[in-house]
């Protein structure tokens, strides 16, 4: 169980960038799990999926909330480490995973945009800012990429 907790902490840290915030997120997620355990319905997906959905939603809320001191100045963004996290997530997908094969079928910019939303919790705007690409272009690119992924995975 401690291993699962450790994985949850890893997922939260990857999104929030700080271990102290990550610990808060995992604690808050577990409190929600505790309160909503009676709502869990196995016919609608696995317990593990439910757990990580709650955790990622918690992290996204923290990332999007106004009252947190998230450094957003361009110089504060460590692009190298963000890029490394996205690449590592892709590299660690098992070679047998369908998701990996299908992500490989996308062009690199689209693949990284999709991965950075899931792995780092980036919004359309954050992705556009980092790529210095207009927001509309980024949205359309992600939409096309997701359509391709769905076709490939189904």
């Amino acid at each position: 169980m401690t291993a699962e907790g450790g994985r949850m902490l890893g997922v939260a840290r990857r999104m929030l960038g700080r271990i102290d915030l990550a610990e808060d997120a995992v604690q808050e997620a577990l409190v929600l799990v505790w309160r909503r355990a009676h709502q869990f319905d196995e016919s609608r997906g696995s317990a593990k999926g439910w757990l990580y959905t709650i955790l990622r939603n918690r992290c996204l809320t923290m990332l999007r909330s106004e009252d947190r001191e998230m450094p957003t100045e361009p110089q504060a963004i460590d692009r190298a480490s963000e890029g490394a996290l996205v690449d590592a997530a892709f590299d660690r997908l098992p070679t047998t995973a369908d998701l990996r094969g299908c992500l490989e079928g996308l062009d690199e910019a689209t693949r990284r945009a999709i991965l950075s939303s899931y792995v780092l919790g980036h919004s359309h705007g954050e992705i556009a800012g980092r790529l210095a690409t207009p927001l509309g272009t980024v949205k359309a690119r992600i939409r096309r990429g997701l359509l391709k992924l769905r076709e490939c995975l189904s």
Partner: protein
Amino acid sequence: MTERSLDLLIDEVVLGLASEADTARLEELAARDPEVAARLARARDRFAPLDETAEEHPLPDGFWERLAPRLDLPDETSPRPEPGTAGAEVIELAPLRARLNRWRSAAVTGIAASLLLAGLLGWSLLSPSDPLVVAVLLDDRGEAIALVESGPDNTTRVTLLERPDVPTGQVMQVWTKPEEDGPPVSLGLLSTGLSRVLSIEGLPEPHPAQLYEITFEPAGGSPTNLPTGPILGKGLAKAPVT
């Protein structure tokens, strides 16, 4: 909403790109429509392998102990009673509750929290009391791959004896045949890929020579509610000598 725009909304919610309003709208749709709920679950499963790619961080010391008191706090999201509506005969419960909570927090250590999580992830600390039947499931090479113990109410403990290689996008499903010439009935999924206890209502008491088997099925379970995939292992039950 077109099928395609619903698919896109589902993906954007799963990735975290959707606005809070859109996310709430989809959650509402899924709550009303099992078909939407199933599509949402499938989309989550598609991206779930990415959760496994995060580094594991050891939980800091005192993590569970810090969590325990938070489990006892009142839910901030629940409606507060209106102040001033209390009549003379109403006992003010808040201070009593606070005292009780302090006592409970002291009593509930982090163990409770870790047990909750363990239980959710399909570990079980309950055991079917004195199994009525026991079956050892063998694979096609005759290797024992799981031990099945089932109680009178069909509470069934499945203990895997080997870590099976579950194909991506598939799940282990446990079956039994309560009637020898009837169809197999699903006892449930081992959705975490680990041993667990399954409970099911409405089946007759298990009997010796009853067939138990585990098959690989598409994520979410067999679409036909009958075994469709390859058999991981099967075996006939026997009554333990007590």
